[in-house]
């Protein structure tokens, strides 16, 4: 069977952004197997030229609505690096707390709303409301709490308005932090219940493996399961590379299949995201994060891309648990209203943080008036595009026996497992089968 298969998925669904899958199999021979990115490019690096240092975050936050906090933090850190600004420990802790809210929001959205329908054999989360009402309600609740958490720290859920180079424009009150902490403690059992429901259908995830280089941040001092500080490392043993040298890691190039640039380091491609962070730092997860990983048998060195979704669940549990501790630290130290004073200067700086879907790099250069003269941004999904293509090249021959529908579904699930954010990388996803 399956001597001839033609798949042409134009704009893959349940995906942030636009991507296409094209497969042609004739007489059992694979003639074409492509991951294409047709998203409309938006040219942020060109548009920020001439804008002032204090407008950069407001502009580049709009690269992505789902990881706007991450883009805002990376750009703010880059501007601070360029202008030689140091932030206080309090600012650092509040920003990390803000960043964790986005990890929970994005991971809940991705696993709960976009991936779970595949595992339950449905086309969207809507039929799941009838099929698994308790689980859906818990997912919605976790998502709502993550958004309220972002609201408190970032001023709103999407596109923060509390960050400014050098500090914060507004900080929460001690009472607000106490209330948040109480809420976070209350959702721990819900998160465990969500993990158990996903675990009950986890055998629907293909046991597909392909040896892969995984890239993420790593923080050694103190050793932390980091999303925010540290240097760039590879699961192949390279690094840490200083974040100012990220261009030597990403090695971006233009592919004719894509409006988003592609990346490679030591192999033909590399992967970023929750699984990359887990593979490089998994031993540093919180106890609950480790418990979730164990529940699914996820171990360091895993090279099954579908397990990225499991790593996301482990991280969701982790960020809640470590945030409860972080709030204790903030409350013990006492919150202070800190004033920020900035004098623009010429300079170049970089910022790097982990988006929910992988490592993100921003670099800006300013003239002495503090106007941006050059920018370079490299988004996690760009870094995964080449890896998705390489996965396809191994996945299609291994799973073509499933026939057209089965293969198409498997490829869509594979793309989704990366949690691509194509508006970030530009926007993409389509699948085409040719008969």
């Amino acid at each position, binding site marked *: 069977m399956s001597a001839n298969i033609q798949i042409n998925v134009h*704009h893959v*669904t*349940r*995906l*942030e*952004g636009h991507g296409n899958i094209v497969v042609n199999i004739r007489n059992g021979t694979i003639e074409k197997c492509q991951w294409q990115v*047709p998203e*409309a*490019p*938006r*040219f942020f*690096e*060109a*548009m920020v*030229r001439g*804008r*002032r240092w204090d*407008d950069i975050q*407001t*502009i580049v936050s*709009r*690269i*992505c*609505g*789902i990881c*706007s906090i991450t883009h805002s933090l990376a750009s703010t850190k880059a501007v601070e690096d360029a202008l030689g600004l140091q932030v206080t420990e309090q600012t650092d802790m509040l920003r990390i707390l803000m960043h964790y809210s986005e990890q929970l929001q994005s991971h809940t*959205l991705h696993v709960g*709303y*976009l991936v779970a*329908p595949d595992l339950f054999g449905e*086309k*969207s*989360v*809507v039929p799941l*409301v009838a099929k698994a009402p308790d689980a859906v*309600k818990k997912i*919605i*609740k976790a*998502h*709502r709490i993550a*958004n309220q958490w972002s609201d408190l720290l970032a*001023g*709103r*859920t*999407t*596109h923060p*308005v*509390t960050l*400014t180079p050098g500090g914060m*424009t*507004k900080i929460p009150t001690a009472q607000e932090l106490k209330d948040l902490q109480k809420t976070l403690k209350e959702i721990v059992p819900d998160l465990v219940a969500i993990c158990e429901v996903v675990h009950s259908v986890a055998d629907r995830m293909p046991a597909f493996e392909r040896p892969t280089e995984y890239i993420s941040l790593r923080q050694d001092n103190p050793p932390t399961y980091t999303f925010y500080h540290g240097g760039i490392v590879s699961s192949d043993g390279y690094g840490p590379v200083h974040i100012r040298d990220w261009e030597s890691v990403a090695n971006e190039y*233009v592919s*004719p299949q*894509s*409006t988003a*640039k592609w990346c490679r380091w030591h192999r033909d491609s590399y992967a970023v995201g929750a699984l990359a962070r887990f593979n490089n730092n998994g031993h540093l997860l919180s106890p609950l994060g480790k418990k979730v990983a164990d529940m699914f048998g996820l171990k360091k060195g895993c090279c099954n891309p579908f397990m990225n979704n499991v790593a996301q669940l482990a991280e969701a549990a982790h960020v809640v648990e470590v945030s409860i501790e972080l709030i204790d630290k903030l409350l013990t130290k006492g919150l202070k209203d800190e004033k920020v004073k900035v004098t623009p200067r010429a300079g170049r700086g970089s910022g790097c943080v982990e988006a929910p879907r992988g490592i993100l790099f921003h670099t800006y250069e300013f003239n002495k008036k503090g106007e941006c003269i050059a920018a370079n941004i490299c988004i996690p999904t760009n870094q995964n595009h080449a890896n998705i293509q390489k996965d396809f090249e191994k996945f299609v021959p291994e799973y073509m026996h499933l026939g057209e529908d089965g293969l198409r579904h498997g490829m869509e699930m594979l793309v989704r497992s990366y949690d691509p954010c194509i*508006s*970030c990388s530009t*926007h993409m996803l389509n699948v085409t089968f040719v008969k």
Partner: protein
Amino acid sequence: MSKPRVAIFDFACCEGCQLQIVNLEEEILDLIHVVDVVEWREAMSEQSHDYDIAIVEGSITRHEDELRLEVIRSRCKILIALGACATIGGVNKMKNNFDLNDVKECVYGKDAKMPHLNTDMTKAVDEVVPVDAYIHGCPIDRKEFGTVIRALLLGKRPPVPDYPVCVECKAKENVCRYEYNEICLGPIIRAGCGARCPSSNFRCFGCRGYVDHPNVEAAKEVMDKYGLTVEDLKQKMILFGSKQGHTL
């Protein structure tokens, strides 16, 4: 009576406004009781050519996207522009301040001439097809989304404020951002956001677009009072106000 059929489409944008629909959280369960969502690529696999209301997010930046939008318009009775990219072009219009070849070369270097990387001048949705209702903001306010949808389902004109952000900001008793030597666009920008940014001690950067008749003279007076120039104000208007129509 059958439920109205709703389809959600996205063009060049960050998809953060669609996310605000998801962010209705539990309320979204109420919403799907009163409308049938028949296409929403980001959230579901189903697709349809048969819908009454089209919600369009994003700016139009390529010829092929104009054609796609025209098809959507021809299929729907009501078209809603969702969020700043759709209503006013949003930050994507900053691109129009540059030569397009320069913009492409800046991002793609020697590969800029590859045909799939082409881009045209950024347009808001109503620069391509007629729009029936606007939900402003970057991102949209999810409460306002509910208000506009409810009004349309009842056959009423959605209530959209035509007074500046300063009105809502004063009601919140915020200290004016100009007192902190910041340039805030509150005096000329359409309210409806609850002055969310100034309430976080962050200047208004204009994501909801200008009020219908901005009081330009008053804005100039504010600049004079604080020793600032109209040029300073224009620099801040570039973010969301590039090639938007009103200029000082």
